[in-house]
C-alpha cells in the first residue's frame, strides 16, 4: 500500500467537502435563487409572484439539494476525524458529529421542503404561500444553536489541542462564526432593516464570515491531510517531496 493510498479515505472526505460547498453556492444562489434572500416584508401577493418567478429553479434546485444533503454525513465525519486527531477527548469529535448531523435538517432540508411545496402548486392560497415563505427562510437563517454550539465545540478542541492539528488563530475564527449565530437572532423579530433576515448584519456580514470561515477550514484541512502521519502525537510539519515519501506510516489508530 502506498502512502497516497493510506490517505484515500481522508481525501474522499475532503473532496466531498469541496464539491459540496461549490454545489451549495450554485444551487442556492444561481439555480434556486433563494440567496441573497428576498425581504421578509413582502406581502402575500408579492410572495406568490416570487414563487412564480423561480418556480422551476426552486423545484430542480431543491430536488438536487435533497440528494446532495446526504453528503453532509461524510463531511461531518471528516471534520470529526480531524478533531479525533487532536490531543483532546473523543467527546469533542462525537459532539461535533452529532450536532452537525442534525443541523442539516433545520439548516437546509426544511427550507427545501417548504420551497418545493410552495412552488409545486402556484394556485395555492397566497396566505399559505406566505407561511411557507416564512417557514423556509426562518428555518434556514434562524437555525442558530446547532452552528453556535458546534463552532464552540470545535473552537474549544482547537484551543486545547497540543498536536497542532489546526493553528490557534483558527480557534478564534470559530468564535467569529459562533458570533454570527448570535447576531442573527433578531431576524426572528424584525421584518425590515439591518437585523431582518435579508439585512446587512443578519445576512451580508454573516455570509462574509461564513465564506471566509469555510475557505479557511478547507485549506487547513487539506494541509492537515498532507501532514497526517496516522500517529497520536503532534502532527508533523509539512514535509516536501522525497522526505514525505520516506516518512514511515505507523499503524492505524482507532
Amino acid at each position, binding site marked *: *500500500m502506498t502512502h497516497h493510498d*493510506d*490517505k*484515500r*479515505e*481522508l481525501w*474522499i*472526505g475532503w473532496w466531498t467537502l469541496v464539491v459540496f460547498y461549490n454545489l451549495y453556492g450554485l444551487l442556492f444562489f444561481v439555480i434556486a435563487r433563494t440567496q441573497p434572500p428576498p425581504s421578509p416584508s413582502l406581502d402575500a401577493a408579492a410572495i406568490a409572484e416570487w414563487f412564480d418567478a423561480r418556480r*422551476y429553479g*426552486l*423545484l*430542480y434546485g*431543491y*430536488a*438536487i439539494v*435533497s*440528494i*446532495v*444533503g*446526504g*453528503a*453532509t*454525513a*461524510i463531511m*461531518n*465525519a*471528516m471534520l*470529526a*476525524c480531524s478533531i*479525533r486527531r487532536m490531543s483532546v477527548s473523543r467527546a469533542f*469529535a462525537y459532539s461535533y*458529529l*452529532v450536532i*452537525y*448531523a*442534525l443541523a*442539516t*435538517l433545520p439548516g437546509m*432540508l*426544511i427550507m*427545501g*421542503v*417548504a420551497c*418545493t*411545496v410552495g*412552488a*409545486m*402548486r402556484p394556485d*395555492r*392560497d397566497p396566505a*399559505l404561500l406566505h*407561511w*411557507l415563505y416564512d417557514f423556509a427562510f426562518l428555518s434556514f437563517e434562524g437555525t442558530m444553536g446547532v452552528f453556535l454550539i458546534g463552532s464552540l465545540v470545535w473552537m474549544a478542541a482547537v484551543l486545547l489541542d497540543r498536536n497542532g492539528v489546526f493553528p490557534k488563530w483558527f480557534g478564534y475564527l470559530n468564535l467569529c462564526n459562533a458570533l454570527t449565530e448570535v447576531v442573527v437572532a433578531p431576524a426572528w423579530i424584525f421584518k425590515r432593516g439591518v437585523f431582518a433576515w435579508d439585512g446587512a448584519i443578519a445576512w451580508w456580514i454573516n455570509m462574509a464570515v461564513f465564506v471566509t470561515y469555510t475557505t479557511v477550514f478547507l485549506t487547513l484541512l487539506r494541509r492537515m491531510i498532507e501532514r497526517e502521519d*496516522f500517529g497520536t502525537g503532534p502532527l508533523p510539519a509539512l514535509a516536501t517531496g522525497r522526505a514525505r515519501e520516506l516518512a514511515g506510516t505507523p499503524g*492505524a489508530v*482507532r
Partner: protein
Amino acid sequence: MRRADGELILLWTLPVVGVVWLAAFLLFPGFVRPMSPTMSAEEVAAFYRDPENLPRIRYSMIVFNWFAVGLIPILALIVLQIRRMAHRTPIFSYAIIACAAGGPTIFLMANLFWLTAAFRPERDPQHIQLFNDLAWVTFSSQVGFLVAQSVILALAIYLDRQQRPVFPRWVAHFNLVVAVLMLPAAFVGLAMEGPFAWDGLLSFWVRNAAIGLWIVVMGVVLARAIAWERAEETPGP
C-alpha cells in the same frame, strides 16, 4: 463462552421492526393506493374526513411514530462491522452514524405532518392539503441520507482490502444500485403525474421497494457477518 453482549437481541429486532413497518404501510389508506398529487384540496380533505379512513390514518401513523427510529440499532450494528474493516480512519463509521441520525428524523417529520392533517380534518381544505403536501414531499423527496448511507457503505466495502472482507463485494454493488433507485424520488415536486410523481412507479413503488429490499438484504448479510465474527473469536481466559 462468549459474553452476552446483546448484539443478537438488537439483530433480532430487525424482523420485528420490518413486520411492524409493513403493517403500518398496509394500514395507511394513503399508501395501498397511493394518494395522487393531482387531488384537489376538497378531495384531500374528503380523504381525511372519510370515517373509514380517519382511524386507519391515525393508527398507522401512531404505530409508525413509535417505530420510525426502530432501525437505528441495526445501523449501529453496521457501524460496528465497518469498524472491523481494513480502514485507516473511522470516517466511514462516523458517516453512517451521521446518516443514522438524519434519515429517521426525515421520516418522523413526514409522520408529524400526516398526523397533524388528520388531527382536525374539519379544518379548511387548503390547510389539510398543505399538511398533506408537506408530508408527501418530505417523505418522498428527502432521500439524501438514504442515498448517502448506501454510497458510504459501498465505499467502505470497496476499500476493505483484506483476506476476508467483512462484507462480500457484491453488497457494495447492491448498495450502489439501491442508491440509484432512490434518486428519482427527489424530483417529486416537478411531476403531478407519471413515474416521477409521488404516487408514481419510480418515486413511490420502486423507491419504497428498494428500501424494503435493502432492509432484507442488509439484515441477512449483517447477520452473517456477526455470526462469522463471533465464530472467529477465540474463547476468553
